[in-house]
């Protein structure tokens, strides 16, 4: 690759620059602009599902509202992050999300910040907002491909294919990334469970300290993937470090 190419453009009147190929949302956030967003995470690729990160982009004299997390930065564009239109759209989106996931603290907080405290719609109470972060982290980062979207429309959900979580290594990446905390992990004795996917795995006991430290299935999966020696995980990382 040649040298990194910079593009220059304006956000709310401020001259900014960014690497060509980067998406608008992270650039704007870096510059300190406040744009609410629920389905973006720097560890995974852009998706554009929650629609909260709407901005107005003016290009060649034409202005349109679009999601900033999926918009590759360009020279000549002018971006507005806080117009009447955008506020109106965000409030409606949050009112819709609040009806779907009224118990989710994050949604309550983001909604409140936008001035939305009530919803005119019947509550559904599904904490999952279908942001797809768990699906992306599992596929792109962990590469376990253990969960995916199933069904469509308002029946869409994230689930292990055919509700068989056999590919899940119970690593907990989805638990960590889920913005609404609706994927729970429990550890009891030498077992770890990812509650939402109904996956329970036995944990490997450290040959040195005796404590269970990670699911055996996961360790074997890593050993396989990275071609590590078979006994690589006999001892937990803590004991290993202490030699």
């Amino acid at each position: 690759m040649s040298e990194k190419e910079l593009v220059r453009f304006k956000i709310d009147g401020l001259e900014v620059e960014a690497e060509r190929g980067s998406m608008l949302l992270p650039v704007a956030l870096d510059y300190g602009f406040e744009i609410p967003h629920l389905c973006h995470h720097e560890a995974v690729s852009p998706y554009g599902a929650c629609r909260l990160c709407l901005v107005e982009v003016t290009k060649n004299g034409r202005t349109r509202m679009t999601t900033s997390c999926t918009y590759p930065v360009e020279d000549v564009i002018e971006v507005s992050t806080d117009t009447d239109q955008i506020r109106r759209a965000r409030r409606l989106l949050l009112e819709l999300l609040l009806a779907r996931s009224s118990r989710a603290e994050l949604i309550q907080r983001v909604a409140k910040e936008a001035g939305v405290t009530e919803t005119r719609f019947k509550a559904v109470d599904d904490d999952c907002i279908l942001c797809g972060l768990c699906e992306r982290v599992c596929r792109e980062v962990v590469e376990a491909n253990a969960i995916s979207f199933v069904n469509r429309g308002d029946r869409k959900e994230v689930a292990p294919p055919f509700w068989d979580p056999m590919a899940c290594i119970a690593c907990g990446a989805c638990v960590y990334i889920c913005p609404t905390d609706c994927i729970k992990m429990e550890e009891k004795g030498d077992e770890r469970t990812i509650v939402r996917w109904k996956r329970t795995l036995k944990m490997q006991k450290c040959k040195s300290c005796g404590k269970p430290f990670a699911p055996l299935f996961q360790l074997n999966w890593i050993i396989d993937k990275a071609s590590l020696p078979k006994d690589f995980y006999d001892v937990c990382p803590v004991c290993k470090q202490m030699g």
Partner: protein
Amino acid sequence: MYLKGPDELERLRKQVIEGKKAEEGQKRVVLCTGTGCRGAGALEVSEAFQKELDRSSDIELKRTCCHGFCERGPITVIEPMGVFYQMVSPEQVSQIIAETVKKGEVIEDLLYKDPKTGENIRYEKDIPFYMRQMRLVFGHNRLIDPTRIEDYLATGGYKALTKALFGMSPEQIIEEVKRSGLRGRGGGGFPAGRKWENCRRAGADVKYVICNCDEGDPGAYMDRSLMEGNPHRVLEGMIIGAYAIGASEGYVYVRNEYPLAVQNVGIAIKQAEKMGLLGENILGSGFKFTISINRGGGAFVAGESTALMASIEGQVAEPRAKHIHTVESGLWERPTNLNNVETWANVPVIIERGADSYSNIGTEGSKGTKIFSLVGKINNTGLIEVPMGMTLREIVHDIGGGIPGGKKFKAVQTGGPSGGCIPEALMELPVDFDELTKAGSMMGSGGMIVMDESTCMVDVAKYFTNFLRDESCGKCTSCREGTLRMYEVLDDITKGKGREGDIELLEELGWVTAEASLCGLGQTAPNPVLSTIHYFRDEYEAHIRDKKCPAGVCRDLITYDIDTELCIACGKCKKECPVEAITGEKKVPHEIDQDKCIRCGTCMEVCPEDAVKVQ
């Protein structure tokens, strides 16, 4: 036979045409076995003909696909006379052969009878349904057995390809398509020439062209009929396009529910490969291009360009943001040019006739013809092809033959499930891309659903919104939740639970669904709601304020009453009522107990005196 060059193609064409000339005057039964006619029993008729004809070898049976007038299927044309028979049944086959084919006598009962004049019409060209059409793209269907490439060659097939490959540079082709004014027929109406140009400009060693035959609109079947009835026309368009763009591989994406289309285009590809019209070194030009078939699972959203490409890649058919255009990075991140079946089928016409002649047809901003599927409360349902700019009135009344049962026209929904409903007052609207959009609807793929006075517009809006709620891929908050909540509000309104402010709430929801959603589905999903609010607001208000459904459709808002003056006390309604809500004796007018009545409408249907009234 492998054709090494254009002269060999012309030689073959000459042979084929001479062969056909020699057959002129040949007795022939042309039978439509397209999907519409099959539904009406065309395969049984075909079998009956085959059995009869096995005994007389001088008569040929030719099976074509859709002629468009599906309402009247199975359709048969007897040649050389050219007599047009409709609604033919297997029992009538031996009579047709004995009288018409052998003796040249016309069977009056099988002719189309003009409902307006009461006269029998002998020839297809004189039937009002066909008279006003301009069958530029679709017309050859009736001359072609889609499994025989020779039939296509006889209609001038692959002439445009020769012209393009040997007489034009890729740039000239693109210029020609641009000047023709051809806009995509798959819904968006994007100028085809410009798309091609952008894709040509995108630098890459491998590029793709795709034909979109997903056709997920319920009730629309023009793409299917083209693909089933004249697949070579579509392939020829694709080969020309691929040459102009510089693509080496093509895909035809057909929905799985179209087995005949899959079969016929499959046969066509094999024939074209055998003749050297597809594959390495096409017609000796040095141009290489192959086409494979991809079967789609059938979700409505899979027809959206990026979802379709994801589906070909083996991923979930979900749209992605198009800030990076597919002409630059589409299928497998390579430049990809996607067009609709009908768009591709227009290309050979443009190349052969030239852009100037083509752009004479149509309106300022929409050139050429458009195929529509005309369905609903209309006399002549079927597929029609008309020049852009024909008025709605001409389409509905002249071609469609008006509304059955003497009922009044109320609205026509154009553009498929997310189109808008256009009222009587706009019947003079010239139908093209821009006028339909201005009227709050859209061209879409060309569906037209006609509604009469017995249709409740709130109920219609609810029906389509529910379809879109169900078909939304569920990715965008705005589309998934927006369509769901619009549906809920509409459902409440039709059940008498509408509240003041509901109309405004629908408008708000419609706005955010259209403005904040990623793909065309969400962006157009509010059309049914917003257009009916715009043109039929009084109906919404009647439901919400007066708790009345003016069209008498919404069960919770209507009452059935028996007009005592008209009731002859025959007792039919009393006998048929499923909940025994009707009382009455002989000679005493009957009465409906409103508390028991479930408003099923049975009494109204069975009353011989039309004494049951709905309010």
